[in-house]
């Protein structure tokens, strides 16, 4: 027995020694500048017009470029088009094509490729349109040597945001599913389904070329495995780190940023007690958003008061500094006759963040005498029952925004088929409709701001926060930036000392 004990000690010591040796290896820079990272889900397709999940776009926006592309601030910059012009009536979009752009296969991009791509993505070549929005296109025409004009059926100020859809070479029309050829700063050099996507620097890129030679993206569905991969040095960048595990990442740099998502506690506005404005206000007053941010996200969240994240700088209204007020909440409930309010919140079980939020809210509501039961449901069930079916009392979910404010705010319009809040307000509907057809940007911004004020003042839902994403990177990785949409711009990343 004595000997055994000693043996054990020896084993433990040698293991420790090896562990220390292992730690020393971290931070070693690879010779060829390859950055390795993971994605939790494989890309949907290599065909840019068949990408549906935001996880796919996050990667493939490095490969395919649209006529315009998103900026870090949430605006657009001309990409394949060197400039564009929108007519006074908001119907005609004229794009001037940039000279000297080459596709990944070496062929130069010309106006015909653009015309083909636009026709392909809008379903004019016999496919399903890549975006339902494209059914509004009346006509696509080459109007000059380097000019394409799109005519819309009805004016739509959101249209330009959809022109980020990738441009592809027309000679590749039959093999879009197999050969991903775009014009972006990276080309796909290898793809093993459900396993690995390899990107290689495009040396002919028209703009600022990538600083690294390539990217390897491993498909790793399990978050724990991904975490271990970072610790073992197999990857350099780990997106979506749980804030509770930051203390395990002392040897890494962590970067956090808002993600243009609105996490909200939705109250079914047609459910009997919630149809009363006072009850909704009382719940809003009873919820302590700072507490949620602290408890659920470890402080990594930006408090919201309406359905718009501050990363949408141009469009978002300023916070007025709402405060938690338990006494007033109690009084409002008493006046409305709902002193012992009871209801059930249905939360998608696959989102730990929303489930935890529900638990925190349930505790907070207890203080004003409200009993909230928590029911977790599977995601697909949530989508059909709560989101499409609107069969729920309350729910918690995150709505990821796009660059165009219309796609964010129209969710509350009464004629929107997925207005699962069941909110109805003709004044709100008019603001959204007017903003869509106006071509005066300042006016449009004002409409959207007014709409946000209505959502806040009517307490349509409890707008909690824009949860920040945390990305852990090796100490030698620089230039990782967050965009207000899911996009990891590998071209900006560099490996330094």
């Amino acid at each position, binding site marked *: 027995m004595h000997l055994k004990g000693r043996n054990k000690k020896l084993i433990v010591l040698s*293991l420790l020694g*090896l*562990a220390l040796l*292992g730690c020393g*290896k971290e931070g070693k820079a690879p010779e060829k500048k390859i950055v390795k990272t993971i994605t939790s889900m494989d890309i*949907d*397709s290599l065909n840019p017009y*068949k990408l*549906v*999940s*935001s996880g796919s776009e996050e990667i493939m926006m490095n490969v395919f470029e649209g006529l315009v592309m998103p900026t870090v601030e949430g605006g657009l910059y001309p990409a394949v088009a060197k400039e564009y012009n929108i007519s006074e009536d908001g119907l005609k979009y004229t794009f001037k094509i940039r000279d000297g752009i080459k596709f990944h296969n070496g062929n130069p991009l010309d106006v015909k490729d653009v015309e083909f791509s636009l026709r392909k993505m809008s379903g004019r070549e016999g496919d*399903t*349109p890549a*975006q*339902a*929005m494209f*059914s509004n296109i009346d006509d696509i025409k080459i109007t000059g040597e380097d000019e394409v004009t799109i005519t819309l059926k009805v004016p739509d100020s959101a249209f330009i945001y959809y022109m980020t859809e990738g441009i592809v070479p027309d000679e590749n029309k039959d093999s879009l*599913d197999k050969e991903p050829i775009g014009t972006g700063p990276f080309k796909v050099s290898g793809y*093993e*389904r*459900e*396993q*690995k996507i390899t990107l290689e620097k495009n040396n002919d890129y028209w703009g600022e070329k990538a600083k690294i030679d390539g990217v390897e993206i*491993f*498909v*790793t*569905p*399990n978050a*724990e*495995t991904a975490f*271990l*991969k970072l*610790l*073992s*040095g*197999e990857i350099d960048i780990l997106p979506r780190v749980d804030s509770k595990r930051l203390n395990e990442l002392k040897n890494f740099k962590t970067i956090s940023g808002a993600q243009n998502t609105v996490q909200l506690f939705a109250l079914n506005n047609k459910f009997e007690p919630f149809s009363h404005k006072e009850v909704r206000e009382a719940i809003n007053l009873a919820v302590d958003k700072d507490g949620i941010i602290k408890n659920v996200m470890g402080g990594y969240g930006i408090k919201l008061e309406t359905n718009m994240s501050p990363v949408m700088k141009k469009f978002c209204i300023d916070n007025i500094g709402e405060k938690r007020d338990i006494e007033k909440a109690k009084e409002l409930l008493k006046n409305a006759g709902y002193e012992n309010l009871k209801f059930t919140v249905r939360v998608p079980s696959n989102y730990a963040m929303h489930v935890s939020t529900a638990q925190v809210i349930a505790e907070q509501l207890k203080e004003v005498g409200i009993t909230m039961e928590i029911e977790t449901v*599977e*995601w*697909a*069930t949530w*989508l*059909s*029952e709560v*989101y*499409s079916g609107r069969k729920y009392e309350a729910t918690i*979910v995150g*709505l*990821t925004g*796009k660059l165009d404010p219309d*796609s964010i705010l129209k969710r509350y319009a009464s004629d*929107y*088929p*997925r207005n699962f809040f069941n909110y109805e307000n003709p004044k709100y509907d008019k603001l959204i409709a007017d903003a869509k057809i106006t071509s005066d940007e300042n006016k449009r911004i004002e409409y959207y701001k007014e709409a946000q004020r209505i959502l806040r003042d009517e307490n349509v839902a409890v707008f909690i926060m824009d949860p920040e994403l945390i990305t852990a990177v090796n100490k030698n990785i620089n230039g990782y930036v967050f965009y207000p949409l899911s996009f990891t711009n590998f071209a900006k990343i560099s490996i330094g000392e």
Partner: protein
Amino acid sequence: MFYIKKLSKMIFSIFLIGTLSFLLLEMIPGDPASAILGVDSAPEDIELLREALGLNKSLIVRYLTWGKGVLAGDFGNSFKYSEPVVDLIIKRLPLTLEIAMISIGIVFLVSVPLSFLLYKIKNKHVKKFGDFMIGVFISVPSFWLGIIFMFVFGVILRLFSVGYNNTFASLLLPCVVIAIPNIGIITSYIRSNLEYEMREEYIKYLYVNGLKMKWLNLYILKNSILPVIPLIGIMIIDLITGIVIIEQIFSIPGIGRLLITSVVTRDIPLIQGLIFYTSVVLVLINFIIDILYSVIDPRIRGGE
């Protein structure tokens, strides 16, 4: 004749499984189109996709189209991957089979000597410890073990990669994790068989007739391993119809991962195809075991 009867029964059950699963998938909530597109998509886009997937047609029409396809060996296209279901399954099969083979190999190579050793050891303490370890082997949760293994061998020792990376070496860790509970089960089973066989009359007879212990042991071992065959059969079925958790943890693109993705995205043709595949494997392996058994142990054929 016996086998033909058995076979037709099994084909009928596969048909039944197919039909029932089709109806069950209809009943559970969750719309494939919205599951694919998610909450951030425009409802018009969801409608477009529903149409493209043929989900707007009636249940009977869809069932008949599916049934007709199956008879022709066509299981339709996956919603998510827009590729034929059969191709998707076949592409993943080699890797899954490889894992199954290695794991079963490990199980067999460890269990047989281990059970014999445990049976032979007379020291009470060691025996108790052995029993304890078998208990641990059987009850340790594999997802936990998988993560611990990756941490120890991948992060601390850096001997293996964390998760599968297309090399044979990276398959060993998951295979060991799969093998461990099975080693526990098979070892304890063979060992109790050994003890049972030892007390059989024929052993006593052979012993008093002066057969050497070496040969005696072989006899006992052979007769103790035979009853394990159905158990191994179940293990094989388990392994080649998808080791869901292990594949998820080790990022192995096998049948199990396909199954998870198909359920999460409500990829009905793919779920259907996988259920069909599973039931065929089940039937086939059972069939093989029956035959194998009757070849090895003639008493079973006699009992027909």
